[in-house]
């Protein structure tokens, strides 16, 4: 590979990586939101994402409603489903068990969702998603993108901006941050912890559903598409697992790394990239690339 080609590859890899990275960042924020508030790693994030894509596909392809109805209905449905899981399952698990039991319950949810979707038979012929924006090519320097790519990235940025406005500047957001810092102290100043945890699960589900709606036109919708959730985990871990800005940067790092590995190393090495990154970050720098020194909890 000569220098000129390498530069073109690099630009292309970064441009494509930024687009998918925006979606991974949404998943990472979804994971981090739950982890900060409740200390649970949601192993079902990929399957909640997959369920979102399926609901949307069902509405668009079978019920045949317009996208302007399908999008909000999907997001609301996944919000309600995730909140119901917290309310109906996790609260009961929490009464008798610790963090590991909660994680096992989310693993259970991930398998349950996968099995249900597979059972509908709707996933046997992988389908692609009808897209709202045409895939008209656009050039950025020497990199090829499409109008759809630009729309995906713009929408992801908008969603993140909206989430941060709510989080940073509203009463509700302040209550959610308080829960993340210290549950008992938040309770003392009048935050209803139970309701807040349910709400956070709902919001986190809605973020995963939004990620699914954005990336689905570029992916095949199958029962196994939840593996994308791993990208979200990799992004969250790179960012330190409890930092929102870290999660966003992590999303872009993973998106770009995945593409560059595909272009410069080998296409079959893409699959192993997130795992290698998760392991190396956890082993070498457990606080993430951007986190400060680790907090030590008192016993």
């Amino acid at each position: 590979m000569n220098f000129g080609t390498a530069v073109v590859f690099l630009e292309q890899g970064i441009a494509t990586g930024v687009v998918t990275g925006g979606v991974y960042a949404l998943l990472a924020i979804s994971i981090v939101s739950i982890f900060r508030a409740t200390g649970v790693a949601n192993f079902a994030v990929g399957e909640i994402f997959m369920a979102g894509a399926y609901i949307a596909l069902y509405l668009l392809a079978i019920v045949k409603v317009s996208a302007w109805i399908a999008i909000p209905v999907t997001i609301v449905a996944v919000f309600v489903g995730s909140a119901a899981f917290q309310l109906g399952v996790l609260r009961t698990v929490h009464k008798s068990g610790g963090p590991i039991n909660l994680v096992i319950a989310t693993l259970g949810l991930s398998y349950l969702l996968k099995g249900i979707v597979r059972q509908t038979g709707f996933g046997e012929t992988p389908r692609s998603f009808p897209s709202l924006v045409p895939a008209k090519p656009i050039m950025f320097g020497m990199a090829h993108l499409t109008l759809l790519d630009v729309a995906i990235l713009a929408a992801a940025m908008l969603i993140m901006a909206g989430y941060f406005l709510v989080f940073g500047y509203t009463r509700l957001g302040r209550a959610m941050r308080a829960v993340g810092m210290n549950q008992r102290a938040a309770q003392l100043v009048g935050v209803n912890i139970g309701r807040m945890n349910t709400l956070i699960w709902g919001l986190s589900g809605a973020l995963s559903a939004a990620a699914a709606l954005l990336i689905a036109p570029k992916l095949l919708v199958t029962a196994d598409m939840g593996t994308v959730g791993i990208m979200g985990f990799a992004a969250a871990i790179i960012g330190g697992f409890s930092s929102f800005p870290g999660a966003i940067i992590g999303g872009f790092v993973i998106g770009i790394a995945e593409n560059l590995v595909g272009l410069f190393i080998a296409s079959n090495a893409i699959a192993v990239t997130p795992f290698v990154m998760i392991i190396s970050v956890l082993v070498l720098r457990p606080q993430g690339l951007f986190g400060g020194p680790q907090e030590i909890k008192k016993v």
Partner: protein
Amino acid sequence: MSRTFVARAALGLLAVGMLCLPAFVTGYVVYIANITLVYIVLALGMHILTGEAGQFALSHAASYGIGIYTAAILNKFAWGVFPLPILAGGLVAGVLGLLIGLVALRMRDIYLALATFAFGQAMQWVFLNWKSVTGGPNGTEIHPTSLFGIEILNDKQAYLLVLALTAALVYATLLLSRSRLGSALRAVRESEVAALAVGVDVRGVKLVAFVLSGVYAGLAGGVFTLFSTFIGPDSLGFQTTIFVLTMVVVGGLGSVTGAISGAVIMSLSSEMLRSALSYQEIIYGALLMGFMMYASGGILDLARRLWRRGSLPANV
């Protein structure tokens, strides 16, 4: 008759029944018995690490796979003399367990789960791509192991060896949980700080748990090669780890009888559902959720609680 006498008699009858099994049933039933025994060993390995020592690791399928491939390589190059391949599988997986343990000393709870999950997935990728050893996605043939110059060719011939090895490992696990080391493992699970305070070498004890868990999984892999003729990377991924986790959860985290009964229940039910992946996923998922919600002590504990409720007045 005392209760211990009844229990011993039942155990004796079970042992005789298990020993005579191949004389009465078809090869397929013996195959199910063999695979169930392998799952018992896998579940015991997870029981030691997660149930006893409280370390939630999700790389069990990787150690199992390492055991299988190590044994398969020995068989292929004429080193397949019982019990050499099985011991080699246990040894290599044990070394791997030591490495995981050394890294895991730096992590806790969820970080450990994530790192070992990623490690398991990365190993499956290696199994998929290291074509000269594993045959890539198509899998590879496993050559037979020989015993006293006779090749072990089918399930019935392998059965007694599989049964003996499993029984030995069950016994070893029981001894372990009654030993000082067993108490040390549980002390680490309950509170590392308290364990340190009473003089438990927490790091050492954790490493031992990781090594033992790896050795058990590797031995299970080696035992698998005794009766199986094929291995593909599809059966060495995260779903296998989840399958074993479901066994340990259904049986009850932290008890040897729990791990064994969970392994028996789950492998028999999965054999019945073999053709329907979606039902398997739904059932494993529902079981993991349901047991965590209402029976985190496992099925034996649940039965005991229901029994007590039935035999006592409702207001007690």
